[in-house]
């Protein structure tokens, strides 16, 4: 039986095109045994393995000089329970496929981000999120995981038996082990109605609290070349639309959650996103808006996205311990972005901001450790589960201060 397949010397290019490297080999093991063989071999040779999902991240979290692994053959539904609304799925299942797979058995994910092209293990591992005052990020729905540690040991962790390990694994960027399957807390399949509105920026800001309270999902885009917002809401179809006299409805759409939450994004962009304490969100946004109007409008046409995420307990979750607002700025992938992102990052950091692990940011271990109360606990677990640093090539070692 052929269990090791390699495709050497291909360049890896992430979705936006700003992250490029040539690993020694790219592999897609079909079985857990094959993953174990790779891990054991890498440990013996002092080589480094990283797992790439769909390549949507633009920070160097998948970069490795040695082995870049895909879990694309670990795909689909493994088991499910309609009583508890739980299911186990392959780690490499792409969200777009997962939505249909779960819907076909009567289940749906609690929330999604703005796109559904990533793998389920990828969005869990990077803290990817949608928007809603009461909705947590996707990793919070992880209640069990099957993984291969840096010792090539196959482990099964559950939130009931291993709460600390699950809280460490939820946003772990592949540093604790290679996920082969994940168990998710889901909901019975459900429908949502999307409504989008145009409004003046000041009107939206004046009604932020009521917008956040009134809608299951709420976020807004701010357009720097118009100083105007698009308010986006999602609610169960049976909920009558709240009155928004200050806004003009421009879109209505209804469907099952997996059909309606994520949007298509073909135009490539770079992004910087920071998570702030929710109370600081409006003031920080005003400062970001003012800075863009004063300094960056000449070259920046892309919108700014303002989202809400409920707190969680994951050790390295950007919303650990605090209800949060996420502010993200974008620039066309074909245009310079560094000066713009650096300037905005300076502002959001002053509000105790934490960066999205999968997007552009400049923080290093010392700064990150100060932002995360469970940082040392995560580092300790990482050392136990990957003592040889198989999952820790140079960029990640620097990020964690584990050189």
């Amino acid at each position, binding site marked *: 039986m052929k269990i090791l397949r390699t495709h050497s010397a291909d360049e890896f290019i992430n979705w936006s095109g700003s992250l490029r490297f040539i690993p020694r080999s790219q592999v897609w093991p079909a079985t857990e045994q094959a993953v174990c063989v790779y891990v054991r071999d890498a440990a013996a040779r002092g080589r480094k393995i990283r797992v790439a999902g769909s390549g949507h991240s633009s920070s160097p979290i998948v970069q490795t000089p040695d082995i870049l692994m895909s879990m694309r053959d670990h795909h689909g539904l493994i088991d499910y329970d309609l009583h508890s609304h739980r299911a186990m799925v392959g780690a490499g299942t792409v969200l777009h496929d997962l939505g249909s797979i779960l819907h076909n058995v009567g289940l749906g994910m609690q929330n999604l981000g703005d796109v559904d092209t990533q793998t389920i293990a990828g969005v869990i591992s990077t803290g990817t999120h949608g928007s809603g005052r009461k909705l947590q990020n996707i990793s919070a729905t992880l209640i069990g995981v099957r993984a291969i540690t840096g010792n090539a040991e196959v482990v099964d962790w559950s939130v009931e038996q291993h709460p600390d390990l699950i809280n460490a694994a939820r946003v772990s960027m592949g540093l604790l082990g290679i996920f082969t399957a994940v168990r998710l807390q889901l909901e019975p399949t459900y429908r949502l109605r999307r409504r989008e509105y145009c409004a003046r920026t000041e009107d939206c800001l004046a009604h932020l609290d009521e917008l956040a309270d009134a809608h299951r999902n709420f976020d807004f885009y701010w*357009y720097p*070349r118009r*100083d105007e917002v698009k308010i986006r809401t999602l609610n169960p179809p049976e909920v009558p639309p709240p009155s928004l006299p200050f806004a003009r409805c421009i879109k209505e759409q209804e469907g099952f959650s997996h059909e309606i939450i994520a949007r298509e994004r073909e*135009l490539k962009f770079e992004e910087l996103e920071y998570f702030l304490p929710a109370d600081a969100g409006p003031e920080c946004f005003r400062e970001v808006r003012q800075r863009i109007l004063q300094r960056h409008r000449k070259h920046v*046409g*892309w919108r700014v996205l303002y989202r809400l995420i409920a707190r969680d307990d994951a050790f390295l979750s950007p919303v650990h311990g605090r209800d949060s607002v996420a502010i993200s700025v974008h620039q066309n992938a074909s245009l310079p972005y560094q000066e713009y992102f650096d300037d905005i990052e300076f502002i959001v950091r002053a509000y105790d901001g934490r960066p999205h692990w999968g997007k552009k940011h400049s923080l290093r271990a010392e700064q990150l450790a100060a932002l995360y109360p469970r940082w040392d606990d995560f580092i300790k677990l990482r050392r136990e589960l990957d003592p040889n640093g198989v999952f820790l090539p140079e960029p990640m070692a620097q990020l964690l201060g584990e050189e």
Partner: protein
Amino acid sequence: MLKTIGSKVWAIPGGHMPLLSSGAEPRDTSRDELCVLNAGHFDAHLQLTIYYEDREPVGPYPLKVVAQRVRHVRFNDLIDPHALPLDTPYAVLVVADHPVVVQFTRRDTSQAANAIATTLAYPG
């Protein structure tokens, strides 16, 4: 009966979006605007190419104007394939698959006593 009006190719050499604005936005945002009339009975698909003084042309920027409709588009808002810089001279070549009429308008609110200028584009 009028069969078609307009042209499939238009040029606008004098693009330049003012950097500063005054007044309430988005109503008073300084801008260059493309106004397209499609009086025909088929949807028109436009491709815009932007030319600069000191760099290679950028495009195509795709736009659709449905049959028997007019569409106003701010150049300030275009981001696909990427945003045009403000305060920078540029020119536009518009190529459509059906005849359309193209008008160009600049609204300059750099000062409170704001100005507006408009002209028909040059048909090819």
